[in-house]
């Protein structure tokens, strides 16, 4: 199977998956007590007003009609209007909030990879007490809830040391990006936008905001990476080709990184892909704790208001993002391991 067929197959397989997920969300949301109209008004609001809103949102139609209508809209690329607040369209709202989540995801993955792989390798290289401590870190960080790590970081760095901001993404007006050859480039990733516009002050501003949330989320995810890196390193370090490399008198650094790690990293890459889904759920908690206006916070917020369309739209969007990332990781796997030809 060529790379193109592989990607095509994976994309086609994504459709039923997203569809099933969406259907579950669609019905579960409606089974839950409360609905967007009731949550909009006081308890003893005018029944006529409630009926008119219910009609306006199409909630008076039979459930299966609502479902068919929604799916129909979805296939036309329309995520519909929000059912709470000012009934604004869902899609632009998701797009405007996505960069915040993406930025958090990128930096916390980076933290997790650096910490996880770094400590995993260090443990194997040093052995003994260092290794035991790292093993313990792997278990503890994995078992610690992200909001606890976040809270500790907020207290230490924000409240006691006063060195880093503990909420939000930026102080003041966010960086505007850059206009190149008449095209305005604004990614919404503040750290990237500020770098693009060459504003170093703005970069420091945005970077300082992302540090604590990234570490909080990164540390929690790094636990799995530490353990997997360590376990795989311990296995590959006993492999024949590692002993052969030592027998050729290669430097210990080359043996550890070029031989043991380079082969141990493959399963870790797979796990990075799997962890991305966990990362997204962690982002919900992290964004809530650090008041980051990302998709996670949006989702929590909209669930509270039973904003059916907003929740469905967000779930579809996140599902597509997660499957895309896992596809990219699989392609990367093939690139890292020459034996794998997709």
């Amino acid at each position, binding site marked *: 199977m060529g790379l193109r067929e592989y990607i095509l197959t994976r994309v086609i397989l994504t459709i039923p998956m997203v569809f099933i997920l969406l259907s579950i969300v669609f019905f579960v949301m409606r089974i839950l007590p409360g609905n967007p109209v009731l949550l909009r008004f006081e308890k003893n609001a005018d029944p006529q007003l409630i009926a008119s809103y219910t009609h306006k949102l199409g909630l008076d139609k039979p459930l299966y009609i609502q479902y068919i209508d929604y799916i129909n809209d979805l296939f036309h690329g329309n995520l519909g209007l929000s059912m709470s607040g000012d009934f604004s369209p869902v899609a632009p709202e998701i797009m405007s909030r996505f960069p915040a989540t993406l930025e958090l995801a990128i930096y916390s993955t980076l933290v997790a990879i650096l910490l996880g792989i770094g400590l995993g390798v260090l443990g194997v290289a040093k052995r003994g007490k260092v290794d035991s401590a790292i093993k313990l870190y792997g278990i503890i960080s994995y078992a610690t809830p992200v909001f606890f790590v976040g809270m500790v970081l907020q207290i230490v760095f924000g409240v006691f040391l006063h060195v880093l901001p503990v909420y939000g993404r930026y102080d003041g007006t966010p960086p505007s990006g850059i206009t190149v050859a008449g095209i305005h480039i604004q990614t919404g990733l503040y750290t990237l936008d500020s770098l693009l516009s060459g504003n170093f002050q703005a970069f420091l501003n945005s970077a300082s905001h992302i540090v604590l949330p990234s570490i909080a989320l990164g540390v929690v995810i790094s636990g799995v990476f530490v353990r997997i890196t360590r376990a795989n390193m311990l296995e590959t370090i006993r*492999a*024949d*080709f590692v*002993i*052969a*490399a*030592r*027998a*050729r*008198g*290669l*430097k*210990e650094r*080359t043996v550890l990184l*070029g*031989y043991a790690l*380079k*082969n141990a990293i493959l399963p870790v890459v797979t796990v990075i892909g799997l962890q991305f889904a966990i990362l997204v759920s962690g982002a919900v908690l992290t964004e809530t704790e650090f008041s980051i206006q990302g998709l996670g916070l949006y989702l929590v917020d909209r669930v509270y208001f039973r904003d059916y369309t907003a929740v469905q739209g967000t779930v579809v969007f996140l599902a597509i993002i997660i499957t895309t990332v896992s596809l990219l990781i699989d392609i990367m796997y093939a690139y*890292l*391991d*020459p*034996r794998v030809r997709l």
Partner: protein
Amino acid sequence: METILSIRNLSVSYYTDEGEARAIRNLSLDVEKGETLGIVGESGSGKSTLALAIMGLLQPPARVKTGSIYYKGRNILSMQGEEIRKLRGKEIAMIFQDPMTSLNPVKKIRDHFIEYITEHMENIDEHKALEIARKMMKSVGISEERLDDYPHQFSGGMRQRVMIALALALNPNLILADEPTTALDVLVEAQILELVKRLKNEFSLTLILITHNMGVVAEMADRVAVMYCGRIVELSKTEELYKNPKHPYTKGLIESIPLLYNRSRKLVSIPGHPPDLRNIPSGCSFHPRCPYAFDKCMNVEPELEKKEDGRYVACHLY
């Protein structure tokens, strides 16, 4: 003759939870420059442990208890860090048993050569290293375009050729080949042995050939050391050993080789099993399996001694 490698009173043990497994017991051996020394023995006789000890590659739970290994007068066992690293690969190179698993699966063959050569020779850049790699590939009979391939794109025999090319790339003095053809089929085995023979002369190497295959030793070695239970029980010129084996264990090994032209001869196997290395029999460790054993064998361990005909045997019969 010049002695290139001299092992003195070497004892190596594996310290496991179930006790101390004595893999090598008080072994002494001299390797002469330019010779091919065959080391034969069953699995578990300590052959591979010996090879790793010579390379200074023993890992816990294995530990050298006593003894020394002198390479050109320097004790390998007391070397550390850069000193031992520079010896490995540059002075003493090793060829491993399983070529399928001895190359890094995620590195191209060319990168195996380049890192190997450049990490030993600071004054050689990648370009020159690649030149050496091309030359080596040619001398083992593989076209140089294949340098760009990954290990999994080679067959077993071809991989062993690559391993040999790698081992010789820095022109070492001593080659340790640990069961180099065990994982290969017979036709390929013959080709590899021919290749090793030819290169040994071409590069004027000293070769230590570790194997359990008596046929391979007969074909290749000038001298043979027979190992049993962590000790050398017999050491002599190959021809003498085959014509007139002295130690009962050697006799057993030779009688257990099937002969195509003499099918009427009964295949004899040595009764019993090699002993558990954690619980080695008293006296001569071979005595429970030895048809000639007498009282002394159970109590006194025979030393490897030079007999009047110039051969070394560790047996009370002589």
